[in-house]
């Protein structure tokens, strides 16, 4: 392992733009994945038989197969059946489906941990099941799940590194490119530092959200 400042000096425009790409993809992917997960956990909570079966199958499949394989299927496979999305959308959809499955399982866990009385209180007000979920259950579960969900979001940072394998010039791809030109690992070290930087930002943000929205019982 070696580190040379000249690499940073010579390559910083590329590194910076790659960092921007990674950060942007991370933010977009996280938001979409979380929103998608909320939708899934809400649909699961409705307990509609057919829908639940379908969603459980979706979750099982996406939790238990590697993201990289999912990305390859979306990127190289789908065009063969006539669906050709830009690389970024392949990445976004892959991460949203994959992490959506994980995050919705987390939220489901917190929904199930809520006391039965909260459901009953909602129902005894004559609310529909959807309204009980929407107004009484989900807001609590979401607040409770902030630490666990941010833990999972920190994995989305890492997921974006796989985008390097589907022709996207993000941080890891750029570090790799620097290496093959200079045979110098500085690019990887810089990228590692930048990944950790995003991770710290996320941790700080999560602490804030957690403090602000913590449910006192």
């Amino acid at each position, binding site marked *: 392992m070696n580190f040379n400042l000249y690499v940073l000096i010579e390559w910083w425009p590329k590194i910076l733009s790659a960092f921007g790409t990674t950060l942007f993809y991370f933010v977009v992917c996280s938001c979409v994945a979380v929103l998608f997960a909320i939708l899934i956990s809400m649909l699961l909570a409705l307990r509609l038989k057919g829908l639940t079966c379908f969603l459980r199958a979706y979750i099982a499949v996406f939790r238990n197969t590697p993201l990289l394989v999912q990305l390859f299927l979306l*990127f*190289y496979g789908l*065009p*063969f059946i006539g669906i*050709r999305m830009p*690389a970024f959308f392949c990445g976004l959809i892959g991460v949203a489906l994959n992490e959506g499955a994980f995050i919705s399982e987390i939220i489901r866990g917190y929904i199930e941990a809520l006391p039965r009385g909260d459901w009953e209180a909602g129902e005894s007000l004559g609310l529909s099941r959807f309204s009980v979920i929407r107004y009484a259950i989900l807001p609590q579960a979401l607040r409770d799940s902030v630490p666990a969900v941010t833990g999972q979001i920190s994995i989305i940072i890492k997921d974006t590194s796989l985008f390097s*394998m589907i*022709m996207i*010039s993000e941080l890891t*791809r750029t570090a*790799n*490119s620097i*290496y*093959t*030109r200079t*045979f110098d690992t500085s690019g990887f070290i810089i990228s590692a530092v930048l990944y950790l930087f995003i991770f710290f930002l996320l941790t700080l943000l999560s602490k804030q959200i957690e403090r602000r929205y913590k449910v006192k019982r």
Partner: protein
Amino acid sequence: ASKTAATGSSAMAAGGTQDAMDQIFADGKLVVATELGTPPFAYKDPKTGEIDGLAIELARMFADELGVELEIRTFEWAGIIPSLLTGQVDMLTTCLTRTTARAGKMIFIEPFVAVPAHALVRKGTFHSLSELNNPDVVLTTTTGGIYEELAEKLFPNAQIKTNGTNADNAVALQTMRADAYLNDKLQLVASMEMYKDQFELIPEPIAWDSLAFATRFDSPKLANSANMFMRLIKMDGKYAEIFKKWMGYDYVPTFEVGS
């Protein structure tokens, strides 16, 4: 047989006693690196699962000549040169293009084949190289290969992407993830055959490359015998035999092949 090397150019102090060659004889094993997915030079036979190809056969002959075993390690393109420089292998026996920059990092052996580099495109899309130098055009090539840098020079306006393997590149071209795929002609011809009539070459070459094995600066003895080996088989007709077997046509000792 690859235990003693230091990284990169620091191995210059190789004139003396500790040559990688000694270690090779001590271990009875020559360790080489190759990238698969470069038929007909080096690839994995889908029927047998065996690694084979022109470069592989040459490596085998060379090991026989030395009287040692051959151990083949496989890498992605991006890992090929590092595998030599970090001492994981003794020699690269893969489709390595000789460049002046690379010559500062390693010793090139006599080239085993010379090829032009081309741009492969989907049929009927582009007709000349100058059309590729356009912001709407996505060029793809192999991660860690020489064409990435070359493409940036030749086509500064185009978007340049890379993929880990040739197969990924061909799929990318076919699925319109990329508009042109840059590589040496033999690779491109192989891809073109796989995809039947879907691709064509832009006739004008982007560069001329000679492909060669390479070894480290701490292995001058090894380099020396490899060079000698290449010259000898080119003279005694063995090379022509192998060439015919893999390339499907006769070896002509001129500069260009594959046309």
